[in-house]
């Protein structure tokens, strides 16, 4: 009961902060978007050269540090890693590829819905389909293997990098890129964005809020615990948008969005499947990296590589739509995910053996 109350509350706070961040300068329907913000950071570091999406987003720094401080405080910080790092890197890349086709991570999908962007309504069943595919792999024995304890230095990597980013953001040396136009140039004031990130980092660490787990647990076990958080984000952001005149229903002319329905749908299928195989949505990966999980940090690095790849080769979606090369990326990503999924059903033989014994 207590847990349920808490996760609904956490979701509500995320929804509310998202509305406030947009009012204070973030791009529309982008109070929070983990994929977009990691992409912006990648651009800010100059690892991709799409001039309109370069900014060291303070929200991401706050999320990691919030989770880190909380985990330390409640003694849940644990330096672990070593569970299929290479595959996790690829899963991160693919997750980012799908998100940049749709133009948003699952969290932004919810926020776009709450802003009346019906393109997100098309993408949502795509996301659910991807997660459903993922659960098929889980049921057949897909696993990336157990993680092991690592040296403490490994666990402190994510918070260390977050602090380095914060210093670079404040010092703003010449080699750090700041967009002068486009979404990358729009942002809430630093202190507010950082504070919002910290608060969500703390809440997400305490509640395990996860936009993929929400739907996975519904499909696998008919368990709606995590879904409560997901739903609360939507309800509060919807009310907030309506109250502040930011609810603009329709398909066309939506902010940082395109109307390519097939690609919105399939892009999120890629994200859903990759997230199940990687064990968490982009936000959850950030939180886990703050808790000391090297496997999650590798996934975040993969997401950064994916963002660089998608923008340097002009594969990412844009308000103009998805380019033919970007459309190919969708199918290539799905194919790679099926290979990773099928290739890791390592305990299949054991499952058969167990069945035999049981009958």
């Amino acid at each position, binding site marked *: 009961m207590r847990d349920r109350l808490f996760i609904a509350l956490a979701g509500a706070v995320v929804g509310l902060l998202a509305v406030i961040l947009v009012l204070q300068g973030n791009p529309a329907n982008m109070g929070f978007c983990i994929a977009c913000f990691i992409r912006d950071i990648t651009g800010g570091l100059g690892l991709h050269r799409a001039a309109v999406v370069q900014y060291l987003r303070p929200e991401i720094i706050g999320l990691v540090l919030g989770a880190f401080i909380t985990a330390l405080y409640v003694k849940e910080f644990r330096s672990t890693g070593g569970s299929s790092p290479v595959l996790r890197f690829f899963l991160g890349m693919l997750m980012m590829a799908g998100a940049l086709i749709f133009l948003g991570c699952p969290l932004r999908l919810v926020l776009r819905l709450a802003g009346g962007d019906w393109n997100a309504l098309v993408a949502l069943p795509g996301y659910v389909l991807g997660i459903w595919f993922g659960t098929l792999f*889980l049921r057949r024995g897909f696993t990336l293997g157990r993680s092991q304890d690592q040296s403490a230095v490994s666990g402190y990597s994510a918070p260390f990098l977050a602090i380095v980013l914060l210093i670079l953001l404040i010092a703003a040396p010449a080699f750090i890129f700041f967009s002068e136009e486009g979404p990358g140039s729009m942002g809430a004031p630093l202190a507010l964005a950082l504070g919002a990130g910290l608060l969500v980092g703390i809440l997400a660490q305490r509640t*395990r809020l996860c936009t993929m787990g929400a739907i996975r647990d519904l499909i696998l*076990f008919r368990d709606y615990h995590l879904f409560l958080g997901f739903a609360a984000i939507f309800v509060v952001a919807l009310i907030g948008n309506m109250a502040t005149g930011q609810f603009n229903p329709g398909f066309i002319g939506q902010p940082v969005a395109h109307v390519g329905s097939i690609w919105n749908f399939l892009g999120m299928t890629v994200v859903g499947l990759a997230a199940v195989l990687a064990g968490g949505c982009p936000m959850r990966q950030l939180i886990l990296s703050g808790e000391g999980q090297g496997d999650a940090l590798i996934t975040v690095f993969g997401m950064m590589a994916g963002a660089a790849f998608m923008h340097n080769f002009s594969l990412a979606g844009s308000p103009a739509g998805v380019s033919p090369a970007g459309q190919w990326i969708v199918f290539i990503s799905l194919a790679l995910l099926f290979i990773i999924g099928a290739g890791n059903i390592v305990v299949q033989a054991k*499952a058969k053996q167990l069945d035999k014994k049981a009958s």
Partner: protein
Amino acid sequence: MSSSCYITFPTTFFAIRAESLLKKTGLTFKMVPVPRSISSSCGTALQCPCEDLAEIKALLEENSLELESFYRLEEEGIKKPLVTELEL
């Protein structure tokens, strides 16, 4: 005050196996996300009445499932639940 017991697993795979095995029996159980008060990780746990815990554990081990830990959780309203790790 209500109390129930939980079994955690090393990977989701074993949790899913446990579910399909136990479905064939008449035992009362439910698959749930690992309660937040037990762990910050996001695995799946088996929830069952504490009086059935020993029987379920024996059945799962007989079928060579790998189990991680056992817990008893006592909840009262919205107060912080009391968690006891059980040595079985």
